[in-house]
């Protein structure tokens, strides 16, 4: 059975993106019932792995940072990947008196139940870490029954973040956090950040009925006081019903909270594009 992550984040290795990863993980941790210490362990270890990608993977250049999260029966696993050829995480060297180097690996080893470091075919490295949860909440299993699929790596530019998430319970914990931190970065006021959270709540709760695959894919593009969301892949005809003023349920609420809405047709269905602006 092919392993399918519950959450995939594709972003650039900018330092500020580590915060996006941490917020997503905190959402996962909430959803899975990790306690505060377990959440702190998870965030600290994954931050070390991400910081390595930020600092060393691309020798000062910008490049992709990918984070996959898997819900396990008794905890979770996180894989952090880069596609670079830079320095990989290494254990500290014997006789090295320089305490500033190489604490990443000991921190990851100390805080995770199991950690693996491997080189990827075609360049890049992956750190895969497993974390125990003392009372894990079981999630609906994602199996490889044909419907399960997760967005692959896409082109990353500095102002774009791609998130794939399933199932609904996880999306409801992760999407509002990820979108709030991106709205904060786009200089939204707290007022409008709260609106973004409402939109994220509503999408996470209702979009799964409209998607064509197993995962809700959300692409976010940031500009000052402007967020563009691209939600896909939706089954034909479903984009309109999620946001139209005259549609049933809470679609009119999403309509009120967003500044522009557009349904883009694609071969395999459609994509919903939402614009949120902070006018002030």
């Amino acid at each position: 059975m092919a392993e399918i992550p519950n959450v995939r984040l594709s972003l650039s290795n900018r330092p500020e993106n580590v915060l996006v990863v941490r917020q997503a993980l905190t959402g996962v941790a909430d959803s899975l019932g990790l306690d505060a210490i377990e959440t702190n362990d998870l965030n600290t270890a994954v931050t070390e792995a991400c910081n390595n990608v930020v600092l060393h993977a691309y020798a000062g250049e910008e490049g992709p940072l990918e984070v996959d999260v898997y819900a396990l029966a008794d905890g979770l696993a996180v894989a952090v990947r880069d596609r670079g050829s830079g320095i990989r995480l290494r254990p500290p060297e014997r006789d090295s008196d320089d305490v500033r180097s190489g604490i990443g690996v000991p921190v990851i080893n100390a805080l995770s139940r199991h950690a693996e470091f491997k080189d990827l075919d075609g360049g890049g490295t992956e750190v895969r870490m497993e974390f125990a949860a003392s009372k894990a909440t079981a999630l609906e299993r994602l199996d490889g029954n044909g419907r399960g699929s997760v967005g692959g790596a896409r082109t990353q530019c500095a102002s774009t973040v791609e998130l794939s998430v399933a199932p609904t319970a996880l999306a409801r914990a992760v999407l509002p956090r990820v979108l709030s931190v991106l709205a904060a970065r786009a200089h939204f006021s707290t007022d409008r950040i709260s609106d973004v959270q409402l939109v994220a709540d509503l999408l996470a709760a209702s979009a799964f009925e409209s998607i064509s695959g197993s995962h809700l894919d959300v692409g976010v593009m940031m500009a000052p006081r402007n967020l563009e969301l691209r939600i896909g892949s939706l089954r034909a005809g479903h984009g309109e019903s999620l946001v139209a003023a005259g549609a049933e349920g809470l679609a009119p609420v999403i309509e009120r909270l967003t500044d522009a809405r557009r349904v883009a047709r694609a071969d395999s269905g459609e994509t919903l594009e939402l614009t949120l602006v902070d006018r002030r």
Partner: protein
Amino acid sequence: MPSLATKPPSSLRADHATGVDSLQLFRRWQRDGDGVAREELVRRHMPLVRRLARRYGRSAEPFEDLLQVASLGLLKALDRYDADRGHPFVAFAVPTILGEMRRYFRDSGWSVHVPRGAQERALKVRDAQERLSNKRGRAPTVHQLAEYLELDAEDVIDALQALQAYETFSLDAPRAGGDGEAISYGDSLGRDDEHYELVELDVTLSAVLGYIQPRERAILHMRFVEDLTQTEIADRVGISQMQVSRLLRRSLDQLRTLTHAG
């Protein structure tokens, strides 16, 4: 607990300890009980202790408290490290120091309570948000709050998340500058029996609106029919914007469940 963080070794002592490799210092401390060697080892590894305290316990307790706990971990690691086994000291010290901080968190009930530091910070963020909103007539950005409170943007975002959580801790505590007694929604609205309609939105919503609390119905009406911002609603109702946000989130969630069930 002795304050390791603030005690530099005297220059006289340092003269015959600096420049010596750590392995030598371990031998002098562990075999001969040489306190100067130990002090030098502490000095060399304080950057590691600081980094671990900052990274592991961020947003939790006051930094100085954590630094003390992490320093204790370093002292234990200095005593227990066996240089002859061939592992670098850092690989041994990191889990020992992290173990000390985890034990501290566990013992202080941190796993089950919102940490004191985080709670205080959330309330500060809430108050600052109101103060800045009142002063400028619009809600501040995260960066403005971070600057005003001298916090990281991440701390502010975490605080906003905590304030959003339905029942993380009581948000109904009197706010700074308030008269002590929280005004009930009914009092401040003065018209809670008025029938708020959301027909402008959707008929299926109107059918289930009766299940929503009058105060929340009023807030839904103000946001989605009158198109007021959350800050304007907060002003009108006399609660914080984060409370407006929390009530909106909750009532929309209820509406969604109700329309779904029906």
